[in-house]
Each structure stands twice: as structure tokens, then as C-alpha cells.
């Protein structure tokens, strides 16, 4: 089973590597959205420091919406998804592999990029570290929960907008704990509570969502 997981991850990473432009599009979207906020709000550093965690997190949610649509769509269109459903192994493992690969090419780059963007908002160095840690724990949750939405809207008309409608409300806990961690740190409170809740969320969704997504995929392919 571990071998299957590795096969799927390697395959999806290889595919992402051969289609590098897609990965970069999501990353640039994230960078642009975050950079637009100071232009809208004004260059007051005090305000910017205050809104930075929320801005980065909301931009991360939107960027994840953008990349989620592609999670199963290509495999659905060319018939590979049928083969995955008929593989003599648990579909949830394949799904988990795809989610992990998706996170590595969409969530992880955001987490790595975020401290750099935090500098635009004049966040102190330790706060940047907290922001990075929160995104590192939180972006996999986005990929995991989003996978359910991606599977449910597979091949449905207006799928992209519908996906956002379904998934964004479910992202709220991740948003609250993720942005809250940085805000707490800036306010002089230990971000540990937030981060551990985020970790709990990650464990819970990591255990539950692959099965739910697998079920949703089977329904979508009927």
C-alpha cells in the first residue's frame, strides 16, 4: 500500500513537472493577490502589519481554489480515473497520494513564499516563522478538504464556481486558526494553541477525507 502511495505521488509530481507553467500560475496568483492589498488599503505599516495574516491566508484559500479544479479533472477527461477506480487497491490510498502530490506543488510553494510576502507587510522575523509554520500545517488541510469538493463537482457544469461555493465555508476553521496563530504572536500571546488546533484539524481531515473523496469519486463516475 505504501508502494502504491509512492507510485501515485511520483506520477503526479512527474506530470506537474512536465506542466510546470500551471504550478507557477497558482503561485503568481497568490503573490499578486497579496501584493494588491497594500495598494488598496494604503501603505500605513501599522495597518498592514495588522491585516497581514488574514490577507496571506485568504489569498492562500483563493489560490487553492484555483488549483483544486485540476486535481481530478485531467484524469477524468482522459479516462485514467476509470483505471484508478478499477485498480485492485483501495481508492482512498490513490486519492491520498494525489492529494499529497497536489499539496507539494500548490500548498508547499505558498508556504515557502509566504515569509517573503510577509516582509512586504513589515512582519517581524519571528512572526514570519509562525506564518510559515501555520501555512505548513494549514495548506494540507485545504488540499484535503478541497479534494471532496473537487470530486463532487467533477464534470458538473459551472464546476469551478460551484467548487468555491461548496468548499470555502468548510475552510473557515483552518482560516481562523491559521491567521489566528500569527495574530496571537503579534499580540504577544503564544501561538502554540492555534498551531496545535491546526495540527488536530490536519490529522482529522487526513484520516477522514480520503475515504469521503473516494466515495465521491465513485459517485461521480457512475
Amino acid at each position, binding site marked *: 500500500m505504501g508502494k502504491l502511495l509512492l507510485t501515485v505521488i511520483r506520477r503526479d509530481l512527474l506530470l506537474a513537472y512536465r506542466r510546470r507553467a500551471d504550478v507557477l500560475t497558482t503561485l503568481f496568483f497568490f503573490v499578486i493577490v497579496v501584493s494588491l492589498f497594500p495598494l488598496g488599503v494604503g501603505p500605513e505599516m501599522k495597518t498592514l502589519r495588522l491585516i497581514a495574516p488574514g490577507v496571506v491566508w485568504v489569498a492562500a484559500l483563493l489560490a487553492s481554489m484555483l488549483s483544486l479544479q485540476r486535481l481530478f479533472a485531467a484524469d477524468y477527461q482522459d479516462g485514467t480515473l476509470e483505471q484508478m477506480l478499477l485498480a485492485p487497491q483501495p481508492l482512498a490510498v490513490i486519492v491520498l497520494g494525489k492529494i499529497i502530490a497536489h499539496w507539494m506543488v500548490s500548498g508547499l510553494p505558498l508556504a515557502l513564499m509566504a515569509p517573503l510576502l510577509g516582509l512586504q507587510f513589515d512582519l517581524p522575523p519571528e512572526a514570519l516563522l509562525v506564518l510559515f509554520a501555520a501555512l505548513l500545517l494549514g495548506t494540507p488541510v485545504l488540499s484535503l478538504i478541497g479534494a471532496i469538493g473537487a470530486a*463532487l463537482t467533477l464534470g*458538473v457544469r459551472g464546476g469551478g464556481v460551484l467548487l468555491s461555493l461548496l468548499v470555502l465555508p468548510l475552510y473557515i476553521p483552518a482560516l481562523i486558526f491559521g491567521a489566528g496563530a500569527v495574530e496571537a504572536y503579534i499580540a504577544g500571546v503564544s501561538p502554540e494553541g492555534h498551531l496545535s488546533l491546526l495540527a488536530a484539524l490536519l490529522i482529522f481531515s487526513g484520516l477522514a477525507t480520503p475515504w469521503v473523496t473516494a466515495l465521491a469519486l465513485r459517485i461521480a463516475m457512475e
Partner: protein
Amino acid sequence: MAINLFKFSSPATFYPVAGKLIPVFYGLAAILTVIGLYLSFFVAPTDATQGEVYRIIFIHVPAAWMSMFIYLVMAGWAGLGLILNTRLSSMMAQALAPTGAMFTFVALVTGAFWGKLAWGTWWDWDARMTSELILLFLYIGYMSLTAAIDDVRRADKAGAILALVGAVNVPIIYFSVKWWNTLHQGASVSLIRAPSMAKTMLLGMLVMALAAWMYSIAVALSRARLIMLEREKNSAWVQDVLEKKS
């Protein structure tokens, strides 16, 4: 018992039975509303601290209860439809969603009216209000998803998964919002403070809630009947129903 359940889970038997029950539930809803309104306005005393404004709770609280109950009942029906593959339960789930969304909306609006006086703003990011707003989003998501999928069987099952995922998420969302809320501004004032509530106030609220129940059942049953007609339009029993009417 089991045989009966299966018998009534067939649309052909359910349709006429529901048709007979609907007027009963509408009637009960009307009677209970009259009693409830009488209790709310003429029996329940003026609140010592809030004055007359508190009388909004007689719709606000039942609506908020209904919004949550209906979501749970809807998720329950949908889940039952997913597991047992019974057509009727999925239809009931879809019939409940618009009514649930309506009550959520009512709870939000009446909450805003009350909030304007209590908090001085129409909207406050209070944990209850925020969760209620998110619940509205969940209802809208469920209705959009089931409407967007053309194949009914897939729509039923996909909707069921979404409703169940939402039901698991609602408490998580509620507690996270509550936690967030206390961090940012401390505990908020609540519309109901149980200790000071007069018995008649509570009674009025309960009667109004019961009326809302009856109304929801009546509306959901009649909507379920329409869904049945539409889905089974080629079957013999629908043709019979239509012939009788015309």
C-alpha cells in the same frame, strides 16, 4: 413494521398519504401560530431590562432552532438515502433544504433587528450570528450542487456527501468561530438569558417553535410531492394522478 416502512418508502404509496397529511399540518401550524402569537404578545410580560424589543425572540429563536434542526434532519435523510439507496429519503432531503435556508435567513434578519438595538449595529461578528451565516452558505451550497447535477441519482448521492460533511463541520465551525470571537472582543451579550426568563416567555417560544415544525413538515411534504411527480413522470401512478386531476 419493516414491511410498512418499505411500503411507505415507495413514492406511489407515499404521494396520496402525504396529500392527505399536508392540510392537517398546515392547519396545526396555523392554530399553533395564533396561540403562540397570543402568548408572545398578550401573555408574556415586558422584559425587565430589554423592554418590548425582546419579543423578537419569539420568531428569532424558533427560526434559529429550525435552521439547525432542519440541517440535521436533512443530512440524516440524505445519509439514509446514500446508505439504503431509498429514493424517498433523498427526495425528503432535497425538499427540506429551501425551508431550512429560509429559516436561516429569518434567524439572521431578526437577529440583525435585535442586534441593532442591543449592540448598536445591524451585524456583529458574534459566534452565533457568524455560524448561522455559514449555515446559510452550507444550505446554498447543497442546493446549488443538487441543482447543477442533471443525473438525479448522482445529484442525490453527491448532495448527501456534502450534507454529511457539512453536518460534521458545523460544530467545528461553531467552536472555532466562538474561540476566535472571544479572542478578539470577549464574550458577547446573548439574546436569551435563561435565568431571568419568565415561564410564559419560554412557553411562547416553545409554541412558536412547534408551529414552525408543523409548517416545515407541511411545506417539505408538498415539495417532496412535486419532486416525486417530476422524477417519476413516466411511471403509471403519476399518469393516474394526472388523469384524475384533469
